[in-house]
């Protein structure tokens, strides 16, 4: 999946805060707190800023991943988006409409029709069968029984649960339960899907299947997705863009290769240090100025390094790197082997890629 930000964002988060604790509403506006870190605020006031002055946009059809370690506030953030947790301050704009200002009934309407959520521990109703779980969202909207069963049946087949309609959640494996959770979220045909670490509780193999399932669903339906995870490889696999959170604050936002190639600080660098760089970085990050043989092969600048290996190693001289028709540099065997050899070291690539078009994304750091 490649970055595909469009000018009309689905979600715009502006100055969003969630502070837990006594007199929490004072923290966002207090200038004395602005320079303190989260742990310092906790020590000073007893309040925990779980989400702190968060700003970002999610484009229509984008898979936007929020990543952080446990306690970084990512699960709180995703709950703030539909006010499952009431934010302390800020704006959550859905297609320009501020969810924070929505009345209870308008909010209910948004939850019923526009935004659905998939949860880490599934949150299925144990006393209802699979089909009744999947159709529950339609039932609370007032959809008639035959209509909602018809729709539920479609979604059940979509997530590969055909034949399990009459089972109860405790008769299903974890992976299948999460398929039910996914089907329930899809049943109402929402515009946006929120995932709160949906696969963390699953076995690695099943997790891989489910990730593939999400990629397939996204390809087929093109829904906007906000995906929370603590697993970097999952984030890189799924995310068009990734937001890294720490102590409730935004640390960096960007595509996978931006995070790996140009980490904003030591924290992110440490985070991505284990990532095999050749799998993530594109030729853009290693291309050098130079001249290539006009008859030799050329590679597009967006090629992942690992995919470029056969071509570069099979060519005697430097290989040209092109952006469209324009030659922007070359890569040599040494460049490629250097990346593969030092793939676990941090900061071994020039943090500035060859072109000035680093801002592939409208990076929305306010």
């Amino acid at each position: 999946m490649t970055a595909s930000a469009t000018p009309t964002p689905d979600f715009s988060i502006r100055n969003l805060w969630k502070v837990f604790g006594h007199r929490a509403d004072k923290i966002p506006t207090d200038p004395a707190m602005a320079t303190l870190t989260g742990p310092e605020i906790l020590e000073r006031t007893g309040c925990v800023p779980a989400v702190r002055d968060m700003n970002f946009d999610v484009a229509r059809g984008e898979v936007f991943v929020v990543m952080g370690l446990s306690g970084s506030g990512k699960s709180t953030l995703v709950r703030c988006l539909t006010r499952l947790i009431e934010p302390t301050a800020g704006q959550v704009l859905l297609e320009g409409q501020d969810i924070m200002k929505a009345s209870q009934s308008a909010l209910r309407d948004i939850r019923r029709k526009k935004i659905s959520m998939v949860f880490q521990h599934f949150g299925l109703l144990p006393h209802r069968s699979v089909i009744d779980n999947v159709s529950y969202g339609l039932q609370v909207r007032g959809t008639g029984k035959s209509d909602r069963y018809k729709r539920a049946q479609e979604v059940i087949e979509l997530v590969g649960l055909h034949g399990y309609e009459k089972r109860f959640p405790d008769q299903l494996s974890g992976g299948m339960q999460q398929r039910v959770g996914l089907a329930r979220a899809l049943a109402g045909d929402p515009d946006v899907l929120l995932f709160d670490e949906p696969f963390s509780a699953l076995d690695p193999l099943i997790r891989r299947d489910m990730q593939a399932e999400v990629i397939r669903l996204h390809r087929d339906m093109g829904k906007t997705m906000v995906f929370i995870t603590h697993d970097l490889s999952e984030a890189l696999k799924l995310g068009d863009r990734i937001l890294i959170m720490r102590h409730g604050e935004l640390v960096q936002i960007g595509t996978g290769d931006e995070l790996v190639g140009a980490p904003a600080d030591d924290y992110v660098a440490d985070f991505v240090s284990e990532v095999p760089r050749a799998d993530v970085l594109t030729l853009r990050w290693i291309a050098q100025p130079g001249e290539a043989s006009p008859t030799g092969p050329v590679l597009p600048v967006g090629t992942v390094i690992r995919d470029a290996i056969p071509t570069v190693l099979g060519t005697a001289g430097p290989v040209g790197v092109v952006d469209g028709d324009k030659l922007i540099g070359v890569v040599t065997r040494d460049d490629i082997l250097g990346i593969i050899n030092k793939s676990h070291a941090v900061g071994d690539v020039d943090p500035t890629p060859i072109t000035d078009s680093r801002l592939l994304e409208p990076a929305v750091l306010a």
Partner: protein
Amino acid sequence: MATAQMERPAAAAPPPPPVAPRKPMLSLGTMILLGTLVLWLILRQVFANKWNLPLAKADLTSLHTDLNTFNDWVGNNRNTNPIFVYFFNEIRLVVDNTSTFVTHLISKTDVGLGIPQIGWLGTFCILTFVAFAVSNWKMALLTAVVFFFIGLQGLWPATMDTLSLVFTSVLFALIIGIPLGIWAGTSDRVNKIITPVLDFAQILPSFAYLAPLVLIFLIGPAPAVIATIIFATPPAIRITAHGIRQVPVTTREAVDSLGVRRGQRLRNVLLPMAKRTIVIGINQTVMAALSMVVIASLIGAEGLGLSVSQALQSLDVGTAFNAGLAIVLIAITLDRVTTAASIRAEVAARAGSDRRRLRLIVIGVALVITVVAIYLSRIYLWAAQFPQASLPDLGTSISNGANNVTNWVTTNMSGFTTGFKNDFTNHVLNPFESLLTGSPFFVVGLVLLVIGALVGGWRVAVTVLICLAAMVYLGVWADAMSTLAATIVATIVVMILGLVFGVWMGRSKMADRILRPILDAGQTLPAFVYLVPFLALFQASRLTAIVAAVVYAAPASIKIIADGISQVSTNTIEAATASGSTRWQIITKVQLPMSAKALALATNQGLIYVLSMVVIGGLVGAGALGYDVVSGLAQGDLFGKGLAAGLTLVMMGIILDRITQAAANRSLGSSISPAIARRQSATVGN
């Protein structure tokens, strides 16, 4: 005594400053405590029987006569004072009418032969039918057999009185309890308000509120039902709230994220998911109501409870045994049926539609039979009154059998039983009681205050001080000390049993599997039935009450300790074993210290159970506060003293509860993992 109770929490508490060496901190609390106890013994000798506030059985303090006057005043103004006319009398009316309605329906009417609206055959079929409808045919069979057996015991009419009382009380308890429980389950604020009230209700010995109820509602069915409601409602509230609260947060969030309304959430999610727990709450409510029937008979309830309490007071073991057996059988039946119903609540939804249709047909047929039986029981005398004369009379045989056993025990085993009774009374109970009753009141008060302060800090100390002051003011200090002595002796025995069996059960799955069902069964039996066998063994004495209290309280304590021990993580045990600990070292240095909270809770529960039972022992010669309460209900001029004794019980309950709760919280508050890990690394190695 106090050493046994105090050292445990003190030992359980970790040294407050983490770096400080452990020994001096431990011994500071213990030294203050030991010093206090030594001082107590010295002062007891120096001021023997001075300022110990004795009060003879018939004597009254001015407070007691004032309360009598107040009682008279209430009696005179009952029909004019607006609080009574518009509030208490209305409550009494509603409860009375409901209770009378149910009694007329299944027990007796005031006209002609006094035959109820629905005769025995009808009621019998209704009970069996309901058992089948809410659970299964096995439970229906059990119900039929038990109630027919009770009929043969000659106790059908008394049983119907008791069932009327239980049914009416449970009805009110559930009408009040389930909505409140749902409210407390969905609102944190309500939960915060209601929890301390429920906690307080739990430590309140049921004897304590009899006199106030009589004051307000007179003697009769209404106060008996109300007393039972007060006792039976808290479990309904607590368990319903618990059932609602245990619905996982994820599930709530998941349905919220689908945009449900509050009503939809309650109906579709919270109530169905809490259903099984709520049925368990109904089970607990029924059992609580049943356990009140004897006590309720002291303020006007009729039925089996009255038979038992009269037989206990006249030491007629045979009659008490016969009626007690019927209560036990009813308890077992109601418990089994409601438990089966709670299991059914879970599986019912999953049964295939064929099975469900079959079941509906069977229920329909059973319903028709029941209706026919009701019809017959309204037409024919044989179906209206249990045909006692034409069936074998089991009741007399059972009474005689019980009396024969009692006589045999009295003649053949009196050497043993009397010897044990005298030894225990002379060497354990009397010295301890005289230590408490012979000391000046301020010395005992000071000891309790020091214990409270050591365990729970100034907050607990202040509570203890207030309660002590109230106890002195209430004027039955000496009786309170007797009751306290019996309570503490019984609790120590309970804790010894709890440690032995609890550790055994906690360490051996086999022991747990064998003992747990016995303990569970023991806990479903109403308290006073334990008095009957020990009355046969030890006649009317304090020991009877103490032994009955021990048997009544032990199951709860044993189970708490067993759970505490078995919750110690296997990793820790493996680590201790790997460091070469002996089995004894593992028990004393790992499992028991790590179960400190469970031990404190077991002591707490043991004390509360024992206290309520020791007081009931007042019915069979245990004297002291229990006797004051009972005689206050029976004799008008002792009313004030009985009321004061009831309030004293409350104060004592609060003191004992606060101190042991503080000990339990303290073992929790010490952030278990690091503290215990630290202690462990210090102890496991040696």
